């Protein structure tokens, strides 16, 4: 089974099945991955689904778009490979993707 992996701030790992066409935020919240709230339901409008993409994956996954960037820019914990996971739509090629969770969501 294809999976994606979330590494918490304390180093714990959680996995969720990679479901093509769904967002990374959706599979995280549906599989009770702690540390992702997703308050706005995937509208890139709350910033509570922030993840930091493993640099090895950054290029394949791509970078943030304008609206997403506007929200990320307000986050003091923002890092170069930060993304809003609700804007990352999963595809088969992302099998094995690893992202890190910030200590806090906004």
């Amino acid at each position: 089974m294809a999976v994606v992996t979330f590494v918490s701030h304390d180093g714990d790992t959680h996995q969720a099945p990679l479901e093509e066409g769904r967002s990374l935020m959706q599979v995280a919240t549906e599989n009770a991955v702690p540390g992702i709230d997703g308050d706005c339901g995937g509208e890139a409008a709350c910033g509570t689904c922030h993840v930091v993409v493993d640099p090895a994956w950054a290029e394949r996954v791509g970078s943030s778009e304008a609206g997403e960037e506007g929200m990320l820019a307000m986050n003091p914990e923002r890092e170069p490979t930060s993304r809003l996971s609700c804007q990352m739509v999963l595809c088969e090629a992302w099998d094995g993707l690893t992202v890190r969770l910030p200590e806090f969501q906004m």
Partner: protein
Amino acid sequence: MTKIREAITAKVQATIPMERQIQGAHLYDKTRRWVTGTNGQKMFVESPIPPVDDLEIGEIDLSNPFLYRQGRWQSYFERLRKEAPVHYQANSPFGPFWSVTRHADIIAVDKNHDVFSAEPFIVIGVPPRFMDIEMFIAMDPPRHDLQRQAVQGVVAPKNLREMEGLIRSRVREVLDDLPVDEPFDWVQKVSVELTARMLATLLDFPYEQRRKLVQWSDLAASMEQTNGGPSDNDEVFAEMRSTVRELSALWYDKAARLAGGEEPGFDLITMLQSNENTKDLIDRPMEFLGNLTLLIVGGNDTTRNSMSGGVLALNQFPEQFEKLKANPDLIPNMVSEIIRWQTPLAYMRRIAKKDTILNGQFIREGDKVVMWYASGNRDEAVFERPDELIIDRPNARNHIAFGFGVHRCMGNRLAEMQLRILWEELLTRFEDIDVVADPEYVQSNFVRGISRLMVRLTPKATG
């Protein structure tokens, strides 16, 4: 020491022009009210609001500041969500405006700051001159972003961790002193007091004078021209002058203490003074005043009314209180659900920057557009049995009471923490919190406030 004190006095005097400005604005406002013949006359006198079904759709006016108090708001919002989710009111006392009442449409507007501007004000009406100090809640990017970045560190979760212990001990003091087995007003003794303590902690404001923060903020947030509230302009201007004086003194006092070798704190002023971009903020008085006032006013009514609303809601849905006592782990989710249920701020206002279409309605450039969070949070398309408080509601966090988009509430984590601590500490002390009289409500179309809530506490049996 005297040297420092002298330096402070000298600096405080340097801010007198700011006070003079306010004095001038006050005179202007008085004259205007005299010339227009509105002096001393209330814009709003309460009268019974008819059932919504007695009205034509176009007559529905959500700006009526008594809608919440008279308990008509639910039916008014519900009819609009069903029949006219993007609704035009052509001649309210505040002029024409659009109302957006569905959850999804509100998010669409709140997200889209390119089309819907937060400038110059986020209330339906227009504040009197000079009461319109610049706050970033009413600025569009990029100006908004710079201002917000300067202050948001103080309420960022990292900093809140530093503050949590102090906030908790201040909550405990209040709860330990509450009368038991006799009625008292929860609003004054708990909600207002705890909010004052929270704000004083945030600003490191002289602790004994903390109620001043609440007093200023209450007056400023209830002006009739802005939202139909009852406050008197003369009083507001007088308070405004004392606010300016004391906040400037706070700044210089802090600077002096830091210079004198005191450990830097985790409060707002220290944070501003240690940041390269804001260390001279005091030399930009309007910005200084705007940012501080925004944090005080933004945190005041909202936190207070969530504290009162939670008690009221758990009394209306007593089985939820039983559920809570059986499972205190539900507190964090309940906090979100209480904020949804209360929705302390009814709306935010925008202005269309260009012609646009929203859910089939043609909105013209320059039109006022009001996003009714209080309605979005009761939208049956998103929340099942929306009028009920359900403390383990799975999607409680999808509430819209903090807004969405670049203006999303900056104090959301502080508010959640303050409420979580309150409920954690309440549960260990009290078996019951009974509301013993009908609550009283605030006059406003903006703040959904409870002004009086008589309760009786039953302490937990010990042993």
